[in-house]
Every structure is written in C-alpha cells, then in structure tokens.
C-alpha cells in the first residue's frame, strides 16, 4: 500500500517538462515535492497566480500572497499574478496541462464527486467544478476505500456530481488506473498488493490485461 507521499511521488512521474499544473488541496499539494530535478513545472493557483513557489521563510509571510488553500506561499521568478476571471479563463481554455485533485468517489466512466455530502455541512465547490469541466488531463489522488472500507471506485457516483466523464487517471494507495470505455484499467499495483485485493476493493468495472507491473520507489 502506498503512503500519501508515495501517491504524490507516483503522480509526479506523470509530469513532463514545461507543464502547467494545478494541484488541489491535500495529497495533490504534495506532488510539488517530487518534481524531478532539472524539470520545469509551473504551478497555477486558481485564486490568481502562475509560478507558485514554496512556503515563505518564517517571518516573510505576506497576507497578500496566498494560494487557493489560503496558505501563505511565494512566487517564483517568471511567475505572474492575475484576476480570478483570467485564472479560470486559462483553466477553461485548456491552457492548464494537468489538474490533480482529490475525490470522494470516481465512477468507472470518469464521473467525479468531491464537493458535497448531503445532510452534512456543505462548504461549496470552490473552483472544483470549473477545473473538472475544463481540464485536458485530470488525475485523481485518493484512498482506494473510505474509512468504513467501502470502495471509492464505483460503477456510478452516489454523492452529488462535480463533473461528468472527466477523470483520466486515478492513483490510490492500491494502484494506478486509467479510466477507459471499459472501466478502470489497472496499470500498476502498489508494492505487495495483489490484483485480487484490488479487484475485491473496486466496486466499478475493473479491466486487468496481462501481467500488472508492481510499482517501485
């Protein structure tokens, strides 16, 4: 089983030089720690920044410089600030190459639910609906099952939808999956996890072809 850091580390292998990337809150944020040396990745923060850098040094926090998670951050050389309309403009126009976000549920047709649990407090969708409706390439980073052990990879989402048929790839603690017309295609297994265990914990259609590689770190 992968740790959260390993999920992020595995997703970082999808990065290519020059990509513009939007990372959601939680595990996706950790992906920034695993950008391969020598590779330039430009992080977009949807509140209005390109070239997001690391947290500021103690004492250098600037309340006017935060990311979409409201954390104090820095900007790297070559970055830029802009308003929220342009920020979502570049997202909708497909200029952001990769979006990584968390999810409560993903359906085997790529539907995603990650913004609301009816009956509980609703915090709002923030920019998630814009991102999933627009991004060319969406990778979901999440645990394979919820706390009760129920699969989060489903034949159909049960929670309110965030976006339809948009997820391209999922990295969970158990494996890596492409969303295909035939369902979740298992690409890689986490170290020590068997195809059978994955099959047992995947409620949606699972496609397994030939030998499935075991990830190594």
């Amino acid at each position, binding site marked *: 089983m992968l740790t959260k850091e390993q999920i992020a580390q595995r997703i970082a292998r999808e990065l290519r030089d020059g990509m513009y990337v939007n990372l959601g809150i939680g595990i996706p944020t950790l992906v920034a720690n695993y950008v391969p040396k020598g590779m330039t990745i430009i992080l977009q*923060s*949807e*509140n*209005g*920044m390109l070239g997001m850098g*690391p*947290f*500021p*040094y*103690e*004492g*250098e*926090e*600037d*309340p*006017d*410089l*935060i*990311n979409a*998670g*409201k*954390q*104090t*951050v820095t*900007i790297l050389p070559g970055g830029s*600030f*802009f*308003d*929220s*309309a342009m*920020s*979502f*403009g570049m*997202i*909708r126009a497909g200029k952001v190459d990769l979006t990584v976000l968390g999810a409560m549920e993903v359906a085997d047709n790529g*539907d995603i639910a990650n913004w*609301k649990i009816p009956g509980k*407090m*609703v*915090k*709002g*969708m*923030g*920019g*998630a*609906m*814009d991102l999933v*409706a*627009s991004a060319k390439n969406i990778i979901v980073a999440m645990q394979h099952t919820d706390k009760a052990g129920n699969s989060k990879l489903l034949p159909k989402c049960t929670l*309110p*939808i*965030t*976006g*339809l048929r948009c997820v391209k790839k999922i990295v969970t603690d158990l494996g890596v999956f492409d969303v295909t017309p035939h369902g979740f295609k298992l690409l890689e297994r986490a170290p020590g996890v068997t195809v059978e265990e994955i099959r047992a914990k995947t409620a949606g259609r699972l496609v397994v072809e030939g030998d499935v590689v075991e990830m190594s770190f």
Partner: protein
Amino acid sequence: MNKVFKNAEEAIHDIKDGMVLMLGGFGLCGIPENCIAALVKKGVKNLTCISNNAGVDDFGIGLMLKQRQVKKMISSYVGENAEFERQLLSGELEVELIPQGTLATRCMMAGYGIPAFYTPAGVGTEVAEGKEVRNFNGKDYLMEYAFDADFALVKAWKGDTMGNLIFKDTARNFNPLMAMAGKITVAEVEELVPAGELDPNQIHTPGIYVHRIFQGINYEKRIEQRTVRKRD
C-alpha cells in the same frame, strides 16, 4: 469631478436595507476591511452579498453574519464558519453556491456589458438545475448571466483621485472584476495618490469603473493559514 471620500462611512452612506452588494477578496485576502466595518456599524440589513467566501467567525463578512445583516450569500466556498453554519441550518440564511470561475466571470461580464455567456462548469451537476444547456463543438455548456449589483466594495493596493486602481499579488482576485460590475463601485486603498502618479500602463482597473475612492486605515490583513518553512 470629485470621487474622493473621507472614509468608509461616507463612501457607503447610501447603502440601504435589501441591497445587493459585491465584496472583493478571496478568503480574508484583499477584503474591503474598512467598508465591512462601516456596514457593521451602519447596521443595514437583508443584504444579498456576492463574495467568493463568507469570512470567518470574527472577521470579514463573518462580522456581518454575526449581526444577521445578510439575507443571502452568493459564494463558491463558505469554509469554516460556525455562525454561518448555524444560520444556514436554521434557515435564517439563504445560500447560493456557484462555481468559482462562474462567479468570477459573471462579475466580469457585468463590467463588459455582456448579459449572458456559456461555461462548461457545472454541467450534469446540481448547479445546472433550471439552466439552459447548449452544445458547442460537441461539448455541453450552461448559460450563465452577468450579475447585477447595487454596490461593489473593493480593496486595492494603490489608487489615485481619478479612481484608477492597482492591486497587489493574490489580493487582486475578485476585486478588479467586482470593481467593473457595481452600479456604484467603492474602492478603499492602502495608498491614495494624486492623478498622474500611477503608470497608465500598469493600471488594473481604469477609473471609469470606480465612482468613489477613499484612503483606508488600520488594515489588519489577517492570515487564515500561516504556512512557513524553516531556513536551511
């Protein structure tokens, strides 16, 4: 021609019960602190507030919620706010949640005189209920309308006596968009300078959009998530 007001109280003197207000800011970053304080002092009620967030319990729009001045919030994310939650669950507060990009764009379109436009955000979700869905180039989009607001209250870094505004870093966010959208736009600035001091190529909001401007005071600029790294 005089757009300069003495302070927030005077700049918002004619905001009345039941009006629709836009308030700039993302989280607590770039919010019109002086205007909010003046609204709280004035005690106007039954307001509809268009703002990406609803502040926190004891700051930002949270202060107006505490006083029950807000009838309806139109936001994308209302975060952690106990008083907000209480009013929502008790039915005292009406809330319309809309995607952040749609919120931003509906402000901009008001300032651009475009009554409606199409966006993919929310297709197939609760957000699409009652909205026109239309297919362009094989993809579905929702029709969304420009906002209509009585007042827009924004916060800028620098401004001049002609109403030109410059924003700093991510405190820009919704501010220039809402500045374009208000029937009356009130801008509070950290530094008010004479006309001609700002580089005309660097102005984010041209003065034509700004009706009132004043020098803000006592900015608290509260940080929601103070995240830092250690020096090596």
